[in-house]
């Protein structure tokens, strides 16, 4: 392990230290040798994150794919201080780290002069479901930490069971597409808006397929001076049953169909950060994913219609929220000529 990590990066908004990603793998925060699946979205998100900010950082990681694949005693891929406690308590663990640093600074026991940032990471299982209470508590208490959820829409670490983030219609190990019930029959939880309802300084939804947007949001999250929540869609080729080389393209279809809108909520103001010029039909998102194969079959048109209607409803609600909170700058009325 290197004694220090060079994290000098170009701090210009919306850019990443690409040089580091391309040529300096020995300085990457997550060292090669981890065991994540080929094409996994998590490492892409993590690389973008660590290339976007250069703070010294302590990471608290919930049980999940990233946790089990990035360390196996006595080996670790982490080149920053890292702690895994359990599945549901990542936010509480991060709260403890934040509190200890505050007290130690107050007592003059923490000599590091640079601000040390706390990053909590969990998948949708550890965030939407079992860890929601601890997350809500940590956000309400105002700890200075960034919570990043890599949302791969299911319990992938245990082999691909449904979560409250699994989309309607998706076939999972616990909601298999059967002869009578065609996959998951419930809509997914909108966690980003739930977190925004905590009225924390910064909440955002992002996608690694649009990395300048993600990088900007990561910086805003770390610099907001309080709790921040980032929700990133993370492709899971293994359980979405997708081509390992098409991960980011598939993720981008979620954005272009407005299934996964990119937006941020900054001190109460909702701002949609990417509006596709042409909103693609939701079938673009459903196609090329084995978990939705049955949805696109003849006789299940009602499912596609239902999914499209729900996407439209949520997208329109988001636009209405944006307009209502002043996220869209009103066009100045054209002055009538005298």
């Amino acid at each position: 392990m290197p004694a220090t990590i060079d994290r000098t990066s170009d701090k210009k908004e919306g850019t990443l230290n690409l040089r580091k990603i391309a040529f300096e793998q020995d300085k990457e925060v997550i060292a090669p040798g981890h065991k994540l699946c080929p094409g996994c979205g998590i490492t892409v998100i993590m690389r973008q994150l660590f290339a976007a900010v250069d703070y010294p950082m302590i990471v608290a990681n919930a049980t999940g794919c990233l946790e089990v694949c990035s360390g196996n005693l006595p080996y670790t891929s982490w080149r920053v201080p890292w702690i895994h406690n359990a599945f549901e308590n990542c936010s509480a663990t991060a709260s403890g780290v934040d509190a200890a640093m505050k007290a130690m600074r107050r007592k003059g026991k923490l000599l590091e002069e640079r601000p040390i940032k706390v990053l909590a990471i969990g998948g949708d299982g550890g965030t939407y479901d079992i860890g929601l209470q601890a997350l809500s508590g940590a956000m309400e208490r105002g700890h200075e930490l960034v919570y990043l959820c890599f949302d791969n829409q299911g319990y992938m670490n245990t082999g691909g069971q449904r979560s409250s983030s699994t989309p309607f219609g998706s076939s999972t190990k616990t909601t298999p597409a059967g002869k009578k019930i065609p996959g998951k029959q419930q809509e997914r939880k909108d966690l980003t808006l739930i977190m925004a309802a905590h009225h924390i300084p910064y909440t955002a939804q992002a996608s690694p397929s649009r990395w300048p947007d993600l990088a900007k949001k990561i910086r805003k999250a770390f610099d907001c001076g309080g709790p921040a929540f980032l929700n990133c869609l993370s492709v899971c080729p293994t359980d979405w049953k997708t081509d390992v080389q098409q991960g980011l393209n598939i993720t981008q279809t979620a954005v272009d169909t407005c299934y996964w809108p990119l937006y941020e909520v900054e001190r109460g103001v909702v701002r949609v950060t990417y509006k596709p010029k042409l909103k693609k039909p939701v079938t673009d998102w459903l196609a090329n994913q084995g978990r939705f194969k049955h949805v696109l079959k003849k006789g299940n048109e009602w499912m596609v219609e239902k999914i499209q209607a729900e996407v439209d409803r949520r997208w329109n609600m988001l636009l209405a929220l944006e307009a209502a909170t002043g996220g869209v700058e009103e066009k100045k009325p054209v002055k009538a000529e005298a």
Partner: protein
Amino acid sequence: MTQQTLFLTGNEAIAEAWRQINPDVVAAYPITPSTTIMESFTQSVADGLVDTEMICVESEHSAMSACVGAAAAGGRVMTATSANGLALMVEVLYIASGMRLPITLALATRALSAPLNIHGDHSDAMLMRDAGWIILFSEGVQEAYDNFLQAVRIAEHPDVRLPVAVTLDGMQTTHQLENLISEDDEAVRDFIGEFKPYYPLVDVDNPVTYGACSVSFGEDFYFESKRQQEEAFKQALPVIEAIGKEYGNRFGRSYELYEAYQLQGAEYALVMMGANAGTAKDVVDELRAEGKKVGLLKLRSFRPFPFAAVTEVLKGLRGIAVCDRAAPRGSSGGPLFQEIRSALYGLDQAPTIINFIYGLGGRQLMPEHLRGAIEKLQVATMTGPGDDLVGYLNLRN
């Protein structure tokens, strides 16, 4: 502040110890009967008497989780809870000990639901007996205070590095007012010393990984790490003794792994832990005055269990009545009974040993109940204990 005598409840005494320790982080969630520990301490925080970062978490699970995060970060960390709160913490109790984090916990013991009961017994302490924590039982307010100060030293000792729980009996010790000798603040701080964390997360230039999995079949270190925890327990016994002695030298109240009360020349003994040992001492005094050779073994360190010392102190007796404040739940007897009976196994002439369950859900234990237990024990030593080793004190039929 110099040494002073205060009139405090057990919970207030714990909060007084915390004020003097001035921990880095306290993360806690209110639950009867531990609540007033947190209330008294948050007053100290609000009044600026400590530099502690107080986290008022949203559950006990998060309380222990935050303690783990804070202790790994490099802080001196403590919490308090009872019964169902402890039950909610259990998952993380094992993680705290597995990571060898020197967290200290004040356990205001209480009955576990159902039916819901807020009064004292030891079922919660027994719930954590296998969690890899050192568990010290306290008889009264002064002992709870003294034990907690020592707990910090024991937990942080380089040969130990295990979390420590200090119990005080719910409602009895927690809410009962007693005189407390509170030692001088500076003397206390000098006794516990500055906390030097071992591998703190805040050392960002020397990054460490806490809690990585150990799953590679055949190449994992899970088994070895559990074996190391056993070694730590073994090493904890002399450390607990030495710190108890040092505490005595400094403050005048020495502590051992157990207290042998009137065991010299005794033929019969009660074995107990916690607040009701006080009642037992009165009963022993009365019986001694009547010429009966009766004594008491009050155990202080339940984990690690001092087998060798217990065997040594109990071996010459004719009969022993172990009084458990927790139900056997399908076992051969209460948890303390099993330990004591096991400690006596293999002796050439082992004493007759029987078990009494008492005080569940705060049921009163009066001197006459213990006198009755001794009478039954005397009969059992003559006629043999029979098939049923377990009796119940003050139980309605």
